[in-house]
């Protein structure tokens, strides 16, 4: 079902789902999870749904975004969904997050969207979010694709599982030798992984890769 909202943005509602695992079962694979405080995680990472389930099945990262709500009466959730759809549809370039006394971090939302686009420059486009629609009764799975129909993925999906492990350790400040000890591999091998992580994330330095990982919610906050 394809709907057009008041601003002309298209949204493909491909399914409705219950929170947690049931929601993911609707669209196995290729799912990114955006929660109502603007944090993005990926479905192939350990993620506890609203029903407390953990260890969800592995899924490749790709085209779909699952908007999930913890507070159904939170209008910010719908604002985020609207904004993201409009951004990906290319119909909106001017947004501003209104987050008076809220937990929603403008920066985390902006960078999360940028991560989904795989385009850091996208962050500067988002300056105002307008929320005016009613809320859905349950989470919806939104099919997000770029204008040419290709799946939308973030830079993080270019990393191998081992590279992601290394990135997690980098983000805690560990050096090569410490990472090598944790993973029980040679530190020269770790160095290779780090160079690869930096290159795949499009960073110029080790620290920039770590900063991007935090900004985009790819690693847990310190």
């Amino acid at each position, binding site marked *: 079902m394809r709907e057009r909202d008041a601003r002309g943005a298209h949204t493909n509602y491909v399914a409705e789902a219950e929170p947690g695992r049931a929601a993911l079962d609707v669209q196995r694979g290729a799912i990114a999870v955006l929660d109502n405080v603007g944090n993005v995680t990926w479905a192939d990472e350990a993620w506890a749904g609203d029903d407390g389930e953990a260890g969800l099945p592995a899924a490749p990262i790709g085209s779909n975004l699952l908007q999930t709500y913890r507070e159904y009466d939170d209008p910010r959730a719908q604002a985020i969904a609207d904004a993201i759809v409009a951004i990906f549809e290319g119909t909106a370039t001017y947004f501003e997050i209104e987050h008076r006394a809220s937990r929603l971090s403008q920066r985390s939302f902006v960078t999360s969207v940028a991560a989904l686009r795989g385009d850091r420059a996208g962050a500067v486009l988002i300056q105002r979010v307008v929320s005016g629609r009613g809320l859905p009764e349950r989470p919806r799975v939104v099919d997000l694709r770029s204008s040419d129909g290709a799946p939308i993925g973030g830079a993080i999906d270019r990393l191998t599982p081992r590279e992601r492990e290394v990135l997690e350790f980098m983000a805690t400040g560990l050096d090569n030798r410490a990472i090598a000890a944790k993973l029980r591999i040679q530190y020269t091998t*770790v*160095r290779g992984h780090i160079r690869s992580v930096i290159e795949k994330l499009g960073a110029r330095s080790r*620290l920039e890769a770590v*900063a991007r990982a935090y900004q985009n919610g790819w690693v847990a906050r310190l």
Partner: protein
Amino acid sequence: MTTPLGALGAQVFPVPSHVALFHHGDAELRALALEFLRAGLDRPDEALFCFGEPGVGERLLRDLESDVGRDLSPESRAGRIVVGTADADVDRQLENVLAPLEAFRASGRRLVRFVGIVAWDAPDFPPPEDFLWFESKLNELLAGFPVIALCPYDVVRIPARAIAYGGLETHPFVLSDGGLRLNPQFIPPERYLRERLLQLPWLEDGSAI
């Protein structure tokens, strides 16, 4: 363990220690660094480690030879004096520091006098943010070594942000105007990543370094 720092003053340094040396230009650096190194030359159980961009450590060693008026090749061949080279890859640079320190420790040196000359945004040096991580990380990694690490920051040449983020915030001690002081600006490495490195303006908004 503590040790006097030679003619640089009567201060007694803890060992290990990581010290930012603020100096004004090459002449002052040369005088201070050579004082520091020369004091170790007179003690056979101490080692010297000159580190910097390609060619910088070698130049410091040549200056030391000139200062003491003799060829130091025998000490170099014996592994008592080592020249280390910076690397744009910060992980490799860390190895270039740690490997000689391990060798010194294995050979039973009582003290290593390390001079690591700081550069900023230079082609053969880690990018500034990686270098700051390196400086902070050294506080943890030097813990196992009998070393006094002196990091000269040229206040004439390098930008103020390097002095602030690097010299002042990653060194427990500062040496300036001939005096060694505990550094109240120091941020321990377990806090530095979160409180400083991840907030660096050029990483946050893409502004110039």
